[in-house]
């Protein structure tokens, strides 16, 4: 937590100050990604788009780690581009209180971000469909009465973030049987599907929600800010290669929430190669 406090100023400073030292690595563009499928997929898409529009060599550094790992990596110049979510940048990196106003959130972070892809990937509070039907759960506020008998499991980032569990529990008055189990994010879906946990926090565009017989509950008290995906790139890179900004702008507004969910499902449920998924999408959507 302490690391994020001055994150906002540091981001702004770093993007300016590092203009001078950017050329050391030659003109290889390094595209990073966070440690989940959608981030890998979007990074691959961005990488292919930069390759075909600019001809610059692109190196992929996918599945690096959580938000804070990618944020540090781009500030340090170890990666040049990655895909971030507006709400995450706003709360977790710039450390503002969660805010529901979509364009307000985008404007606050827009200085550092390219055009948005066109979909919102919010935290999804996910339960088994069986439980949702049995207890009549549609919204997160419906969970409060059953929570005292339930076990929740979350990844470490969700437990620590400003827009994470503590605020969620306050906003909805959730009290679980025990403090939530902290575990590796990638294992939480499995734990939920196998009945070892009753409630987890996933991503609303995850293909696994449908495939594993789970449902995402509606955030009826609008606790989570909008999380619209957009590529973030180092200012020095865009300064040297304005054609990269043009290539990224072509992706603006091209992926809807449903489209993203389908792409994620191709990777997570049908286990297709993400490079192939990205190639097909580009061939279909960006003539």
């Amino acid at each position: 937590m302490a690391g994020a406090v001055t994150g906002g100023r540091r981001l702004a400073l770093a993007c300016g100050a590092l203009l001078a030292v950017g050329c050391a690595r030659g003109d290889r563009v390094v595209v990073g990604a966070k440690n989940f499928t959608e981030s890998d997929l979007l990074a691959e898409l961005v990488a292919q788009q930069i390759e075909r529009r600019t001809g610059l060599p692109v190196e992929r550094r996918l599945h690096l780690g959580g938000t804070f790992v990618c944020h540090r990596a781009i500030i340090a110049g170890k990666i040049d581009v990655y895909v971030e979510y507006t709400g995450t940048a706003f709360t977790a990196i710039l450390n503002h209180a969660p805010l529901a106003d979509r364009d307000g959130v985008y404007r606050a972070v827009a200085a550092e971000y390219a055009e948005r892809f066109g979909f919102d990937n919010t935290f999804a509070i996910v339960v088994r469909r069986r439980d949702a039907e049995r207890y009549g759960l549609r919204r997160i506020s419906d969970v409060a009465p059953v929570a005292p008998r339930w076990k929740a499991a979350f990844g470490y980032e969700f437990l620590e973030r400003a827009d994470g569990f503590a605020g969620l529990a306050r906003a909805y008055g959730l009290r679980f049987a025990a403090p939530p189990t902290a575990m590796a994010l990638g294992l939480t879906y499995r734990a939920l599907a196998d009945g070892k946990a009753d409630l987890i926090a996933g991503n609303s565009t995850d293909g696994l929600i449908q495939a594993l017989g789970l449902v995402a509950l509606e955030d009826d008290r609008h606790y989570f800010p909008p999380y619209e995906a957009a590529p973030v790139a180092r200012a020095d890179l865009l300064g040297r290669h304005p054609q990269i900004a043009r290539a990224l702008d072509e992706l603006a507004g091209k992926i809807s929430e449903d489209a993203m969910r389908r792409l994620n499902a191709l990777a997570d449920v049908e286990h297709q190669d993400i490079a192939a998924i990205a190639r097909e999408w580009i061939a279909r959507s960006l003539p």
Partner: protein
Amino acid sequence: MSLFQFYAHNSREALTLIGQHLYLVAVSTGIALAVGVPGGVLLTRRPAWRGPVLGLANVLQTIPSLALFGFLIPLPFIGGIGARTAIVALVVYALLPIVRNTYTGIAGVDPAVREAGRGMGMTDGQLLAMVELPLAAGVILAGIRVATVVSVGTATIAGAIGAGGLGVYIFRGADMVNNTLILAGALPAALMALAADGLLGLAERKLAWRAR
């Protein structure tokens, strides 16, 4: 925030995690001992099983912990999320050095000594308890030492499956890019490993001295 300040502010949580860590190591090494030593002895009695059993232990050793957790979550009794799954994984990782050293230690006993024992009319059980195990104790203890020290380090993966332990600080620190947090988990784990190594080393030396 310095490491000292961190511990001062979070002493209760830190102590809980250290306690959980010790518990995971103690229980898993205990089970690995209870299974591994008799298992190693059995292999000396059934030489044909040696290849498959040691091969299996070797293969188990190479499964990455996250993958192992993935397999274990759906299983009844030994699976789920929490301490039990972590202990199963730690036992799996601790078995190989104990089984192999028990087997190697006993197989390395001088055949002439064994013959002498038989000549004195010892049963197989007596031979094991009075000749083979005492002579092999040094090698067996060395295996236990390796297994324990490795367990102290590996037990940090318990943090990935909701079983607590010092891995919680390491995972949280890695996700939040907070080096103080990572150190808060790694440092006590390293000290614990050194302490376990030192204590078991002492026991080994004592044993070697007695054997002389």
